């Protein structure tokens, strides 16, 4: 009985926090369209979230694409299907690994830093100070970061997809003896517009979720250094879970199209 009660309580707590994040998201979106707009904060967030994430995204993608090519070759060789490497690398990278890995890297790099920064601002009364200076924290802190992630993460995913496919290409043509021109032709012929649309859609959803969750945990941080630590940890956990769950749902949706 006590076990059931404990499970019930944690399920209720989870549902309550999902509800709170949802309300937070609606509030954030409602502020996106209402002035004032903080262009400089948006530019800084774009630089931080988009541009400065490029190295991490590029490295993640190239190693993953390379490893993928090797695995598919090894697996394919068991039933004489080594030739499918370009097609499977392309579809694996674009539809699945590109968006998911970029999303997780964004959760690690961006969600954590947003949560820690905003939580520190909260703990040191900077959020209170913003309010007394007639500046809405939602508009000044959340909206620029969420918008920047919404815009830049799909671009990062596109870059990750291309670099990942290139990683597969480099390994396949370099060590597995594939013909470069044929590899590229196979990749390009095989990919359909829907694959790319699904990749970019996932990027937008993951980026939005990653930034929003970082802001939410930061704004709701507890007091002191422990509060900041807990907010940061919680935000990365939640963002990673949400990204993986959303990936499953979106994959299902695109599967039926």
């Amino acid at each position: 009985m006590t076990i059931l009660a404990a499970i019930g309580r944690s399920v209720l707590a989870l549902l309550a926090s999902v509800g709170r994040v949802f309300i937070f998201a609606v509030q954030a979106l409602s502020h996106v369209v209402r002035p004032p707009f903080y262009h400089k904060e948006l530019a800084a967030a774009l630089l931080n979230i988009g541009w400065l994430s490029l190295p991490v995204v590029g490295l993640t993608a190239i190693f993953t694409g390379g490893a993928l090519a090797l695995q598919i070759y090894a697996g394919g060789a068991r039933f004489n299907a080594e030739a499918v490497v370009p097609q499977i690398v392309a579809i694996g990278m674009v539809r699945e690994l590109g968006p998911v890995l970029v999303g997780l890297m964004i959760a690690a790099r961006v969600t954590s830093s947003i949560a820690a920064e905003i939580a520190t601002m909260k703990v040191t009364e900077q959020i209170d100070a913003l309010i007394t200076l007639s500046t809405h924290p939602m508009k000044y802190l959340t909206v620029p970061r969420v918008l920047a992630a919404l815009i830049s993460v799909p671009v990062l995913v596109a870059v990750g997809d291309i670099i990942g496919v290139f990683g597969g290409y480099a390994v396949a043509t370099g060590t597995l003896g594939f013909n470069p021109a044929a590899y590229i032709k196979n990749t390009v012929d095989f990919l359909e517009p829907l694959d790319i649309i699904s990749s970019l859609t996932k990027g937008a959803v993951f980026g939005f979720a990653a930034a929003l969750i970082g802001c939410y945990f930061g704004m709701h941080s507890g007091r002191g250094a422990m509060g900041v630590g807990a907010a940061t940890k919680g935000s990365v956990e939640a963002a990673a879970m949400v990204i993986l769950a959303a990936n499953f749902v979106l994959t299902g949706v695109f599967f039926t199209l």
Partner: protein
Amino acid sequence: MIKMEGVTKSFGSNHVLKGLDLEIARGTSMVIIGGSGTGKSIALKCILGLVTPDAGRITVAGGTSDRDAFLARFGMLFQGGALFDSLPVWQNVAFRLLRGSLAKPRAEAREIAIHKLRRVGLGADVADRFPSELSGGMQKRVGLARAIAADPEIIFFDEPTTGLDPIMAGVINALIREIVTEMGATAMTITHDMTSVRAIADNVAMLHDGVIQWSGPVADIDHSGNAHLDQFIHGRAEGPIQPLR
């Protein structure tokens, strides 16, 4: 100008304010004294709406329902400074002048910021530094400059002289007095420093155990006949206020 009636606030089982009554007349300087952790900062935050009281009424004369317009009349120095560490000092001071309803051209805002910094004893050379590069006392003074930057009608100072040397504390006390007498602002200051109390206050209120134990003109504090106040101003360990040991 500001009236608090029966304001209560608890954090869980910690009953911080238990029915606070306080009135501050326009153009006067009220100083709140009281032991550490008695809820002085919370009381200020209740007036600003940063903390929602559990019960009671707070009215500010000439109030509007528009929150931005309401807050535009206030300046607040936070106990910890609360400077934005992503912005250089002058942009901290001029924050309100760089955006929103009080926005001014950038050069003019910078000019005002440097002028306000000089009033709190900081040279123009700190304007382009970042808050993390300043000492604690300098940060406090930048916070003070930010609080007065837009010449607000009502100013709250949470421990303005804590962490300052006696000379600088004297400068800040004189500045606060000047803002009240020359610019007609209404000020509410929290301090533990009895020299500051005598320099700044028109009226004094002593907060202890969630309520105002004594309030009255500063001239009366030495013969108030109130045991709480007497113990506090003489810094005695014995009396109605029991320090935990």
